[in-house]
């Protein structure tokens, strides 16, 4: 039935780098029939600006619904991450250039803002002058850093941009003795306790960071405004000649050059656009925090932004925004053991449901794991009371229930690394198995996962957060390289 439907307009617009027939074959196969299919098609025909308006309205309404400083702060951070992800998407997703110095542009934006409006050199430019100036600085620096891309490609470009990142960190952390003057404040940064970096000043009013101890909601709205401007602007760029040229460059630089595209200029432009967006995000970050510190712009931040872009789907603007939200909310939840526990078991159950659906095998796995847990718990408690008498991390009803099932020794000692390594090995082995053997291995793996989660990972949320990021990067690349919303790329060999 679905074959008789006329082709939709959305599917027929020509897109560079996509084999239309192959791409649409998969879509046609996956298309649902009946009511879900109709709903899906209706949703697909909603224009992009409607989604954007809806999304922005939802974010703007968030502080009204949840009137807490914490929610405002997390929402603000998420919007800044969305900006960063949009900028990185230009370089990596559209230009296909692996830029590992991206966070340095964010840092350059923040430091430029701090130098142009603070007591450091007693320069206090108005915000409406500083922000465009900083964006221009970012664009120019991006152009300069992009220059090596004229000669280098792929891994070499990645490593040169990584060197640039290192240079930035070295200069900034040692910049308190630059030719005898204190420029960047060294490892103390600029600002800090006395907060001598000016807050944003719009229409004659200072945007102070917090009023009465509650995070100033106006910063969220300014960041949101930046986001809308950047999103719309980049969307127009992507749908212009430049955007099409970028995509052709990403798919095949040689062919693009043959077709007369100014390949070098396009690469520089991609770098420059990305850097300008990062610098813009830096200004609001510096204005909000009243200071800049070198430790902010480190390697973990780079990996965080990369995970957002890759998970959401590099190349898709909506994708990287979704990626930024998912990753930042995930990182926030992982901070607190009480909350991340719910998330962990929820994800395990959902994952099992996705793999086995509602089947006998699912019942076997779940039942087997539960029985195994009680058995292990009973044996452990009969051997020694110390094996089950440890305190659980965080609280909540789930923690109390799990204490009867997962063994929580009062001290782990060498068992922490042993159990963790065993868990990682078991999970890796699981990916190689199939059939009933897999189910047989899955049951102890699940129990071990619960053990490691309760005893090892919840105790160190900082390490756990970044372990999860690293695992997401590898898993997404292997399972679904296009990310959640990215367009499927067909390799034409």
């Amino acid at each position, binding site marked *: 039935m679905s074959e008789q439907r006329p082709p939709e307009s959305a599917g027929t617009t020509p897109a560079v780098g996509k084999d239309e027939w192959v791409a649409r074959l998969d879509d046609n196969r996956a298309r649902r029939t009946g009511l879900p299919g109709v709903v899906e098609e209706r949703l697909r025909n909603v224009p992009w600006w409607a989604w954007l308006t809806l999304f922005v309205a939802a974010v703007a309404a968030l502080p009204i619904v949840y009137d807490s400083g914490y929610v405002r702060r997390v929402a603000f951070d998420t919007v800044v991450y969305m900006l960063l992800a949009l900028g990185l998407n230009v370089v990596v997703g559209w230009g296909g250039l692996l830029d590992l110095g991206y966070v340095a542009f964010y840092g350059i934006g923040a430091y430029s803002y701090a130098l142009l409006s603070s007591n450091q050199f007693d320069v206090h430019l108005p915000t409406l002058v500083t922000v465009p100036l900083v964006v221009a600085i970012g664009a120019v620096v991006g152009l300069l850093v992009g220059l090596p891309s004229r000669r280098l490609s792929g891994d070499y470009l990645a490593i*040169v941009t990584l*060197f640039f990142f*290192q240079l930035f960190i070295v200069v900034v952390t040692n910049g308190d003795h630059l030719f005898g003057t204190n420029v960047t404040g060294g490892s103390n940064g600029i600002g800090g306790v006395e907060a001598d970096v000016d807050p944003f000043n719009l229409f004659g009013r200072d945007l102070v960071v917090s009023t009465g101890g509650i995070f100033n909601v106006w910063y969220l709205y300014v960041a949101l405004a930046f986001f809308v401007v950047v999103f719309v602007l980049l969307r127009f760029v992507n749908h212009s000649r430049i955007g099409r040229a970028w995509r052709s460059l990403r798919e095949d630089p040689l062919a693009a050059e043959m077709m007369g595209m100014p390949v070098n200029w396009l690469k520089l432009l991609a770098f420059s656009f990305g850097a300008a967006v990062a610098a813009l995000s830096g200004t609001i970050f510096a204005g909000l925090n009243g200071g800049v510190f070198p430790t902010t712009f480190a390697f973990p931040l780079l990996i965080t932004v990369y995970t957002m872009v890759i998970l959401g789907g590099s190349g898709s603007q909506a994708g990287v925004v979704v990626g930024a939200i998912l990753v930042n909310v995930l990182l926030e939840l992982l901070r607190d053991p009480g909350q991340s526990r719910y998330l962990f078991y929820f994800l395990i159950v959902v994952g099992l449901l996705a793999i086995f659906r509602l089947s006998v095998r699912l019942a076997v796995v779940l039942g087997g794991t539960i029985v195994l847990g009680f058995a292990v718990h009973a044996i452990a408690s009969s051997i020694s009371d110390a094996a089950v008498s440890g305190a659980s991390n965080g609280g909540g009803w789930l923690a109390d229930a799990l204490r009867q099932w997962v063994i929580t020794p009062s001290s782990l000692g060498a068992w922490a690394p042993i159990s963790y390594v065993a868990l990682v090995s078991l999970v890796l082995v699981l990916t190689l198995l199939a059939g009933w053997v897999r189910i047989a291995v899955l049951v102890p793996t699940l129990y071990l996962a619960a053990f490691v989660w309760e005893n090892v990972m919840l105790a160190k949320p900082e390490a756990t957060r970044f372990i999860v990021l690293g695992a997401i990067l590898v898993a997404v690349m292997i399972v679904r390289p296009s990310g959640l919303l990215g367009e499927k790329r067909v390799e034409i060999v």
Partner: protein
Amino acid sequence: MDNFIQFTVNALTLGSVYALIALGYSLVYGILKLLNFAHGDVFMVGAFIGFGVLQALGGAADPVISIWFVLVLVMLSAMAGCAILGVAIERFAYRPLRNAPRIAPLISALGVSFFLTYSMQLMFGSQQRDYNAFAMANGALFFKGFDIGSVRVPLLRIVIVVSAFVLMILLWLLVTKTRIGKAMRATSYDREAAAMMGIDIDRVIVFAFVLGSALAGAAGVMFALRAPASVTIGFVAGLKGFTAAVIGGIGSIPGAMAGGLILGFAESFTQGYISTRWSDLFVFLILIAFMLLRPQGLFGKADIKKV
């Protein structure tokens, strides 16, 4: 003059550690054309395995057997552990992406690197681990040695440089004289043609990872004998090792050795004569210049793209 000798000795020790790391990059890059970002973290894990074995054998001050056996055991177990780790990384993070676009394994490698760093932090915390080499054999490694003029070259430095060079010579023999070495060279020259000639590419790739990671493990132990190790040492060491490989010409074994030594000299002498604060700046500037002016390195062949 005394300073000069001191800096040269430093440069040699530092350079031989960089050279060992560089060899791992070179071996893998030569065959897979993949920049293995996780290599620096394998190096870090090597330092930690060595520390664990050292503690299990009674620690540096009071070992259960002779300290020389302990050193050999520490080195061998770090190499073996890292080799296993390298094979696992290849099998689970890189092999599924062998035919993916070039950017995919690079991102996967970033993920592996991050995963390893923070897994180690989860298991062992972020505090520094000191081998306490000073206590080994009652300080003999530091106080004994031979004299050049008025400068004493400690035994520890000699042990590091000599064992690094022994490992490199062994690798050189392995690659040039054995069957599997020949297969590696053939694969790095032209992977498809080698496969058509009946060479098992998977085996060659796994072997490259075994060799490279084992050398990184040895380098990790050598590094930790000189300075305390923490989970964060992998990043910068990996970066410098890669640079050494690029300076020498990636894919070339003598190139990696030369590149490591050049980098060691550059770092040691800028630290000694110019400034400790800015030595990294000079090192990275030299590298960027090198990458731009001669990306094929000292010993590499210019890369001619055939289409």
